[in-house]
């Protein structure tokens, strides 16, 4: 089984978000970038398929050279090879088209992407990719088993979960549950040394036009101070929620 894991290069969850150039660009100054958490759960699950079922695991990112340390980290965790499509990841549709070419050229059986990236939270790339390559698709995956060409997938739904059966080729949007937080792997020195020797292939992009374009950014209006209510006077809270906030 050939597995491709899509890796987004995103600001660490603790990052302060700021913009530059008249609020048209994300300010990367002082921001630490990491493997998108949803992708990391998927990568860890892929390692299980590699170790238990003999799968090969490649990782891919659509982005500039600045994303390579993130791909090297994925190699240090245990992926066999990395691919970087050398173009800025702007619109989700454009990214999906780039990935579709990578998947078709590499004849991958299973593509594991994250449910969404934590920067733009679009959650659209996995579904669009599946549609473009005419593969089956399951979103919000919290469990994945493969046997031959059959797949059993657990999907989180509003208020519960459902178990579905489908077949390869398959694209999933994964999240925590594929593996648990405690299963995540911190690269060790040997992994890091080996990652330096593993292939990281840079390929030139197709030229699809972006369908959407973020023209400007803004931050939420600063919040007014919290209204504190005395712990012995919860009546006041009920009254504020009813009369002032009008939410009960």
């Amino acid at each position, binding site marked *: 089984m050939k597995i491709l894991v899509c890796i987004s290069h995103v600001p660490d969850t603790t990052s302060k978000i700021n913009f530059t150039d008249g609020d048209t660009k994300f300010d990367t100054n002082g921001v630490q970038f990491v493997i998108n958490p949803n992708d990391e759960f998927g990568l860890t699950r892929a390692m299980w398929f590699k170790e238990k079922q003999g799968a090969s695991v490649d990782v891919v990112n659509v982005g500039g050279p600045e994303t390579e340390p993130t791909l090297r980290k994925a190699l240090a965790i245990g992926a066999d090879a990395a691919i970087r499509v050398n173009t800025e990841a702007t619109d989700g549709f454009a990214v999906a088209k780039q990935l579709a070419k990578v998947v078709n050229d590499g004849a991958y059986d299973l593509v594991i992407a994250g449910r969404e990236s934590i920067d733009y939270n*679009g959650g*659209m790339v996995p*579904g669009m990719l599946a549609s473009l390559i005419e593969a089956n698709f399951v979103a919000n995956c919290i469990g994945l088993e493969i046997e031959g060409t059959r797949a*059993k997938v657990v999907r989180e*739904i509003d208020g519960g979960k459902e*178990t579905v059966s489908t077949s390869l080729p398959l694209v999933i949007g994964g999240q925590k549950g594929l593996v648990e937080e405690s299963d995540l792997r911190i690269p060790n020195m040997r992994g890091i040394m080996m990652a330096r020797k593993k292939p990281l292939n840079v390929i030139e992009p197709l030229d699809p036009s972006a369908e959407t374009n973020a023209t400007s950014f*803004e931050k939420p209006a600063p919040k007014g101070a919290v209204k504190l209510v005395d712990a012995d006077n*919860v009546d006041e809270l009920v009254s504020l929620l009813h009369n002032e906030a009008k939410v009960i």
Partner: protein
Amino acid sequence: MSVIVYTESEKGKFKKAAFEVVSYAKAVADQMGTSVTAVTINAENVESLGNYGASKVLSVNNANLDTFNAKQYASVIEQATKQDGGNVVIVSSSADSKYLAPLLAVGLEAGYVPNVVEAPSSVSPFTVKRTAFTNKAFANTEISTDVKLVGLSNNSFGLVESGGSTSVEEFTPSIPDSGVSVESVDKATDKVSIADAEIVVSGGRGLKGPENWALVEDLAEVLGAATACSKPVSDLGWRSHSEHVGQTGKPVASNLYIAIGISGAIQHLAGINSSKVKVVINTDPEAPFFKAADYGIVGDAFEVIPKLTEKLKAFKAQNA
């Protein structure tokens, strides 16, 4: 030309988000000088959409569509859009709509913008405001394709009754192979889901252990609220992962969010920031959540919450 809106139902009944997306579609249609066509799948009482501004309903009734399937549902909406000549398509932010929307976008070759929080600031160029960086910011985003697909963030626009009537047409699309078949569903039917809830009551490590969750559940019951928890609580296995809200968990966009014993890490606040009114109850006055909340009580949850639950019970009885 029309604005197409997919109105979700469950066992025939419209979800609340269905009326919200129609209200939103009506606002978009007014800006564009056109009308709203709603697409329903196995829904009852479809005339009720007229009240929120749908002037036409394409009603699909097919037993093969009783179980949600993203590929089949996306195909139905795609066919309806093409038949009606729709140039803007609106869907909600439910798990199912977010699942089908990317497939629909490819089928319609539509630029897709999810998590939209306001009516378009302009329809030419078509520009909408969406959340980005997990609610830490907004991005004004232009869609340049002929057909545009917008995912509306739940609870961001509200319901607007415009009191019109609607014409209903039966629509019989072709149904593609499903590719994915559902084997079993595990869903608590008696509980409000976090996505649908108007009020969410959430507990953190301050509650000291899973045995104390009756505090959260009792308060939630009085309010008809969904229950949720912070990441450490789900990581410790005190509560199921499906209740974890925050940047790597579920997003919350409720009208009221009550945080009990949650300190308010930046990742947690990002995930719940879209909620309109936030209340925090925590023993530590320095907890970062107090900076993000509208109302707060510095106090011990084990004393404050039972009192609050009692007071709310009395309030509900009085205002019933």
